[in-house]
C-alpha cells in the first residue's frame, strides 16, 4: 500500500493534487485543453465553516461541484469521510450525495411541482424510506426552520427566503456531515440574506455540521471561520478571520469595467 491510499481519520475532506481539465471541441481533430483547477490540496475538518471566494472563472464552482460529487476530477484524490470518492461510478456518487452531502443553491432548485413538504422528503425517498415516514421527518425539519405552516405550499407560493429555508431543510433531511451552499443568498435581499446566514451559523455551531459556502460578498463570507481564496484555478489564500480583512475581495465584474 502506498501512502496515498492511507485515509486520514480526523479530516472530513482531504483533497490531494486535484486537477480538472475540460476538453473543449473534442469532436474536432485537435481538442482544446482548458485546465480549470491546478493541484488543489485541501483539508477540511468536521464542524468547520468555510467560505470559498474568488472571481468568476477562478474555478470555485468547479471545485464545489467536485466536492459535492456532482462532477469528478481529471486527476488527484478526494477523500470524503475517509472514503476516496474521486473516481466512483455514477450510482455510487449519487449514493454519496444522498447520504453525506446537502446542497443549497443560489436559485433554490426546488421541484416546482411538489409541495414544500414533498420537496424536503424527496431525498429520503431516494434513500429508500417510505412516504409516510419521510413526510414525518420532513415536517420536523420544516418546523425547525420556521416553515411549519407552509408545508403544503408549492415553491411558487413562497417568498425567496422561505424557498431557501425549504432548500436548507431538504439539505438537512438526510443528516449529512457536509452542506455545500453555492451563493445561497445571491437571490435574496440583505435582511433575508442575514437571516439565512444566521441559520447556517446556528446549524454549524449547534449541530456541528460542516458548511462550505461559495460567495463573493464579504459580509456574507464573514459568517465563516475559514476563508479560501481561489485565483485562476489555484488556492492563493487559506486562513482564519484575519486573512479575510487583510486582502479585500475584489469582484471581477467591478475591476473589469473600463
Amino acid at each position, binding site marked *: 500500500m502506498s501512502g496515498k491510499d492511507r485515509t486520514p481519520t480526523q479530516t472530513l475532506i482531504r483533497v490531494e493534487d486535484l486537477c480538472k481539465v475540460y476538453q473543449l471541441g473534442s469532436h474536432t481533430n485537435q481538442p482544446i485543453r482548458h485546465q480549470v483547477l491546478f493541484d488543489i490540496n485541501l483539508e477540511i475538518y468536521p464542524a468547520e465553516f468555510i467560505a470559498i471566494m474568488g472571481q468568476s472563472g477562478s474555478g470555485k464552482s468547479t471545485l464545489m461541484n467536485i466536492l459535492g460529487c*456532482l*462532477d469528478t476530477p481529471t486527476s488527484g484524490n478526494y477523500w470524503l469521510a475517509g472514503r476516496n470518492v474521486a473516481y466512483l461510478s455514477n450510482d455510487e456518487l449519487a449514493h454519496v450525495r444522498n447520504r453525506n452531502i446537502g446542497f443549497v443553491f443560489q436559485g433554490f*432548485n426546488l421541484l416546482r*411541482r411538489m409541495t414544500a413538504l414533498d420537496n424536503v422528503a424527496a431525498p429520503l425517498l*431516494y*434513500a429508500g424510506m417510505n412516504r409516510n415516514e419521510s413526510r414525518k421527518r420532513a415536517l420536523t425539519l420544516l418546523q425547525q426552520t420556521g416553515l411549519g405552516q407552509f408545508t403544503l405550499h408549492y415553491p411558487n407560493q413562497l417568498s425567496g427566503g422561505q424557498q431557501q429555508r425549504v432548500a436548507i431543510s431538504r439539505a438537512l433531511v438526510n443528516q449529512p456531515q457536509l452542506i455545500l451552499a453555492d451563493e445561497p443568498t445571491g437571490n435574496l435581499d440583505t435582511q433575508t440574506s442575514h437571516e439565512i446566514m444566521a441559520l447556517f451559523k446556528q446549524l454549524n455551531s449547534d449541530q456541528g455540521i460542516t458548511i462550505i459556502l461559495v460567495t463573493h460578498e464579504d459580509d456574507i463570507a464573514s459568517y465563516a471561520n475559514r476563508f479560501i481564496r481561489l485565483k485562476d484555478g489555484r488556492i492563493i489564500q487559506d486562513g482564519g478571520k484575519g486573512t479575510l480583512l487583510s486582502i479585500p475581495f475584489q469582484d471581477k465584474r467591478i475591476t473589469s469595467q473600463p
Partner: protein
Amino acid sequence: MKLLIIISEAFRALQLNRLRTGLTMLGMIIGVAAVVLMLSIGQGAQINISNTIASMGSHLLIVVPGATSSGGLRFGSGSVKTLTAGDAQAIAELSSVEATAPVVSGIAQFSYGANNWSTTITGVTPDYFSVSNWEVESGSIFSEADLRSNTRVAVLGKVAAENLFGMEDPIGRILRIANRPFLVVSVLVAKGQSLSGRDQDDNVFIPLTTAQRQILGNQFPGSINYMLVQSTSADMMEEAEAEITRLLRQRHRLSDRMENDFTVRNLTALAVVASTTAKIMAWVLGAIASISLLVGGIGIMNIMLVSVTERTREIGIRMAIGASRRAILTQFLLEALMICILGGLTGVMLGIGGAWIVSQIADMPVVITLSMIGLAFTFVTMIGIFFGFYPAKRAASLKPVEALRYE
C-alpha cells in the same frame, strides 16, 4: 426509491399535462382498438368457416361426371352424365370407402295449399344424410325400401319447410311436387350457408329413384349428377381417390390413351384451403392494425423526448439530492409504460365495444378471446418499453452538473 413511489410520481407527472398525455394515449387507444376489432372479426369469420366445414361431413370426396371430349371438342365437367347409381354401388364396395351417396338435383315447383315455392329438389339415398352430416329435427328419413319402391316421400330442409308450411307442422302433410303428391316424412336441422354461400336449408330431398323416374327424368338409365364418397378415414383420402379412378376407368371402359370422363375432388382439402385463407386474412388485418400501434409508439417516444428536455433541470435536482441513474430511468420508462397500459386498457374496451357494434349492425359473427386481449397487451407493453427506453436512457445519462445549469 421504492417502486410504488416511483409509480405514483410517474402518475403525478402524467396528470400535470393532461392534454398532452391524453393525445399521446390516443395513438395507443386507436391502435389497440383496431387490433382487437380486426382480430375478433377475423376469428369470427374463421369460426364461421369451420362450422360450415363441420356441417359438410368429414373426409369427403366428390365425384362429378364430365371432362369428356368428342371430336376434339372438350366439354366441361357435368356436361355429360356419365356417372350412374351403379357406379356409386360399385365404389361403395371399395376397401378405402365407407359410404357413397349418389345425388341428382334440379329445380322444381312445390305447392302446399295456397303456398307455392320454387327451389332445389335433390334425389338422394338414405346414406346421404349421414355422409353429409344432416341431422333430423322431426320425423324420420326414408329407408332403403322407399328407394327400391320409388315411394313419394319428401324430407324438407328448414327454410323450404318454413316457406311452404309457415307455422304448421309439415310432418304427415301432403306436398305437391311438380303437381305430384308427396308425403312429408321429416324436417332437417338447419345447417346454414355452404362454403360457396348457397343456402343449404332451402332444399327438398326425395328418394333418388323417385327423382330419376318421376320428377327429373333420365339422360340414360340410372344417371346421376354427382356422388359424395366418404373414405374410411382422413388418411385414406388419397388411397380412395386412386381406387375410385381405377374402378371408374374400368367400368367406363376407357382405354389407356383416353382421358377420364369424370373428376374426383377432395372436398375436405378445399375446406382446409378456405379456412387457411380466412386465417391469413385475420392475421393480415391484425398486422395492418398493429402498424397504427407502431405509429402510436413513435408518438410516445417523441413526447417523452420533449418531456426529458423540458425537465432537464428537474432531473438535475433529483440527481443532486441522490437519485441514481436507475431511479431516473425507471421514472421516465414508467411514464411511457403507463401511457401505453392505460391507452391499451381503454383501447381493449373500445375494441370490444366496436366488435359488438359490428356484430349487431353487419350481422357478422365476432369472437373475442382472452388470448387476443393478452396479445394486444403484450404488444402495447413491448411498445412502451421499446419506445420509452431511449428517452429514459437519455434522461438518466444527463450529467448532474450540466442538468443543474440548464435553463
